[in-house]
């Protein structure tokens, strides 16, 4: 029994959460450093996982398996394939930046405000989310996965509802009411999805007799377990619904703008860059592996929904007046791309989708965190309240621009690679959808540049004339992300090498082959 | 006579006790009714032990008594402190569960 690396990776932040929460209120700065320390340690462990993982080895590696609820065949089974490894690395990488960016977000408000802000609670919750997300990436037991998939809602709920932007244009009262509305909305949407999934999980147990992903997928593959077509479809829908809410896919997306708009920027990043990834990841791992036939059956509908998400999200982003909501709708558009790539059922599409999850995490983090810095300076989320920032805070503007360019997936930055792969992958099988989706890149340019023009350029608004440029801490947060964006844009090979074999296996589960180029075929 | 009657008697007593719990407002009386229910159970257990011809039933009954004793001690203590704070032993007064 070797050292349980995966468990350690997930448990470490959990311990960190408890330790941080235990710090007395007087020493809140100590709590911050402690949380940061733990997140960094987790990052180290994640890197160890990354190193120990052998792309050409077995499908699931570093596996752990212990009996848990023997009566129902629920096991504590962990294991990672390339996709999971990549996402774990992303999560572990982002959390320290999120903590660092939110360094002052949970400080007690200045006197006169009624709200109580438990500083160490903020960081403890973030670490708790990290632990659960990592576990749900690692779990290869459906029931185990379900538990963490649901459990991560609780800390998220408190993060959204409990901590808003320091100052708010409408004053503290309305802010808190809107916040709680957003938090409840987030919770309800995801809980409903989760309940439906629970039904499907139970159904799966009834059909398959156990919860082990590997065993069931095995049985599905070699035909020893065959489901009735309708059963399989219903179960698939049950799973997919939950993931589509989390992802989020049109028309189940409306919780995201509220949540991201009301939460502080770091929490918003946590939502869209880390937590939502679980949804798309689960589509790839559970929907496709457990229900290959049903997945193929549902593909056209899902592709259309994804397409709608892409265009719709982009159009709404253009129409927004609130910086954070704009980013939220942009994310909806990007998730459309990811889902499209997954269900295009081509290796380019799925590799692209996985790569997209990583890149989108980084790029959104960069953009959103800088936006957060901007908002914290002016105390307003309305685009109209800014203008000419570029002149007073050039570095801030520059980083903001780079984040924006990454969002519109400029070649040379990481998101371009993934987006193009997704488009090519989709186009290869569904040309019409691929072409329509390409309009998304024009719209992306539109909302990004409009945002940049309205906030950063033009004559300097008096309110922003005294705005300070990025501070050291903030630069420490942004610079590495930007470096990473550029590096992965120029040299994505490290990621693709890890991801590719896993994707190949997933495709073989679905028994799909890439369409061959016509001319080659002719020769 | 069939010893099963003991069980019927136990059931009857238990029901009476339960009803009492529901009807009475005086916490002490409610408590007594609970004791009554416990005793009914004990009777049933004893009858069972006779039925199966081993002493396990009696053991359980014995434990029940011990637990009942402990429960009474704590419960009465609670009642007393309740009475101190609200000058009444009515269970309805402690209606803080109301939304």
């Amino acid at each position, binding site marked *: 029994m070797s050292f349980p690396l995966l468990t350690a990776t997930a448990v470490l932040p959990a311990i960190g959460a408890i330790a941080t929460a235990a710090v007395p209120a007087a020493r809140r700065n100590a709590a911050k450093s402690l949380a940061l320390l733990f997140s960094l340690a987790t990052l180290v462990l994640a890197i160890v996982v990354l190193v120990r993982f052998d792309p050409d080895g077995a499908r699931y590696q570093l596996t752990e398996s212990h009996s848990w609820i023997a009566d129902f065949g629920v096991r504590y089974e962990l294991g990672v394939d390339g996709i999971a490894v990549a996402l774990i690395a992303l999560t572990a990488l982002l959390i320290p930046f999120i903590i660092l960016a939110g360094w002052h977000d949970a400080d007690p408000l200045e006197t006169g405000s009624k709200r109580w802000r438990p500083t160490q609670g903020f960081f403890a919750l973030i670490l708790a989310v990290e632990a659960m997300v990592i576990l749900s990436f690692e779990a290869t037991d459906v029931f185990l996965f379900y538990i963490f998939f649901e459990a991560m809602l609780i800390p998220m709920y408190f993060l959204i509802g409990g901590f808003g932007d320091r100052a708010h244009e409408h004053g503290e009262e309305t802010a808190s009411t809107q916040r709680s509305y957003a938090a409840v909305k987030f919770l309800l949407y995801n809980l409903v999805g989760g309940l439906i999934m629970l039904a499907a999980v139970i159904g799966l147990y009834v059909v398959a007799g156990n919860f082990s992903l590997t065993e069931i997928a095995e049985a599905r593959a070699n035909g020893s377990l065959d489901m009735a077509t309708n059963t399989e479809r219903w179960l698939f829908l049950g799973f997919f619904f939950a993931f589509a809410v989390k992802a989020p896919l049109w028309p189940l997306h409306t919780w995201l703008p509220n949540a991201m708009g009301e939460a502080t920027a770091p929490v918003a990043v946590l939502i869209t860059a880390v937590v939502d990834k679980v949804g798309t990841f689960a589509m790839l791992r559970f929907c496709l592996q457990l229900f290959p036939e049903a997945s193929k059956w549902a593909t056209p509908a899902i592709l259309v929904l994804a397409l709608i998400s892409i265009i719709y999200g982009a159009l709404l982003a253009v129409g927004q007046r609130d910086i954070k909501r704009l980013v939220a709708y942009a994310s909806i558009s990007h998730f459309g791309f990811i889902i499209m790539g997954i269900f295009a059922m081509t290796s380019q599409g799925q590799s692209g989708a996985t790569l997209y999850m990583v890149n989108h995490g980084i790029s959104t983090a960069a953009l959103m965190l800088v936006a957060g810095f901007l908002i914290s300076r002016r105390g307003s989320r309305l685009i109209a309240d800014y203008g000419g920032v570029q002149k007073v805070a050039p570095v801030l503007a520059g980083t903001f621009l780079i984040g924006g360019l990454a969002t519109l997936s400029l070649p040379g930055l990481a998101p371009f690679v993934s987006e193009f792969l997704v488009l090519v992958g989709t186009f290869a099988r569904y040309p019409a959808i691929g072409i329509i989706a390409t309009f998304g890149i024009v719209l992306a340019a539109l909302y990004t540049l409009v945002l940049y023009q309205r906030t950063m350029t033009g004559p300097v608004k008096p309110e922003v004339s005294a705005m300070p440029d990025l501070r050291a801490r903030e630069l420490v947060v942004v610079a590495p992300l930007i470096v990473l964006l550029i590096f992965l844009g120029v040299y994505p090979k490290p990621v693709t090498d890890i991801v590719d074999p896993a994707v190949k296996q997933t495709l073989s589960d679905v028994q799909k082959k890439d369409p061959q180029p016509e001319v080659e075929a002719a020769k | 006579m069939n010893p099963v009657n003991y069980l019927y008697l136990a059931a009857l007593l238990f029901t009476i006790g339960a009803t009492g719990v529901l009807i009475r407002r005086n916490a002490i009386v409610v408590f007594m009714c609970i004791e009554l229910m416990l005793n009914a159970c004990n009777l049933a257990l004893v009858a069972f032990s006779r039925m199966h*011809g081993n002493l396990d039933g009696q053991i359980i009954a014995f434990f029940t008594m011990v637990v009942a004793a402990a429960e009474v001690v704590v419960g009465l203590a609670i009642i007393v402190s309740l009475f101190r704070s609200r000058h009444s032993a009515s269970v309805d007064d402690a209606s803080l569960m109301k939304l």
Partner: protein
Amino acid sequence: MSAQLAAYSTSQLAAYSTSTGEAFQFWVLGTVAVIGALCTVFMKRAVHSALCLAGTMIILAVFYLANGAYFLGIVQIVVYTGAIMMLFLFVVMLVGVTAADSLKETIKGQRWLALVCGLGFGILLVAGIGNASLTEFSGLAEANAGGNVEGLAALIFTKYVFAFEITGALLITAAVGAMVLTHRERTERARTQRELAEQRVREGTNVPPLPAPGVYARHNAVDIAGLLPDGTPSELTVSKTLRERGQIRDVSTEALNDLKALEQRAEERLERTAIEPPTFKRTEEASK
């Protein structure tokens, strides 16, 4: 006693159906037990309930003995009836009698619901026992062969030893808990007489000291309310406990009638035409 009981029952207990003696005992005592239970529920005063319950318990003790649970029977009498019920009585004394004793229902529909549920529950239980196949009674003959207490002991200290230990821990905890609960830390300084007086003045209710009992009544017993000038008794003059127990003796009417008689005699002596004085009735106010 337990010896001959043992002799008596070891012969009988193995049997499928019991001796007529036990049957007789069952029917008589069983009835009494049920009545006692009912009284426990429906008696107005907590004290009476407690006594009825004690009775029921003793009867149950007898039943235990009859079922061959000698040890339990004794324990029932000693521990339950002896210790626990006494504890109850103490608390009743401590708490005193309160308005909670009245059987008047305050929650709408509660009583009916309770009765329906109770009846349904009882019927279901009985039905359950009825259709369970409980014909075969093996009896405790061999189980009690080595003596009931020894048998129990053997079980308790071997098979159930952990449970036994835990219950021991439980008892200690309970004792400590009871002490913690009932022990009252005086949080604020007791208020001096001056402060009390000032509070009375501030609130403006009975600024002077409460009236003494027995005033205008030619009585000086504490349980007799003093009369107000119009002859009605004033509850204020009697101590709170008596008031709550409703143990106020009301003497207003006979007091006034005495006065009337006195005046009549005076009239006769002075040969005056008798003016009909109004006869006093007990006012509702006085009745309670």
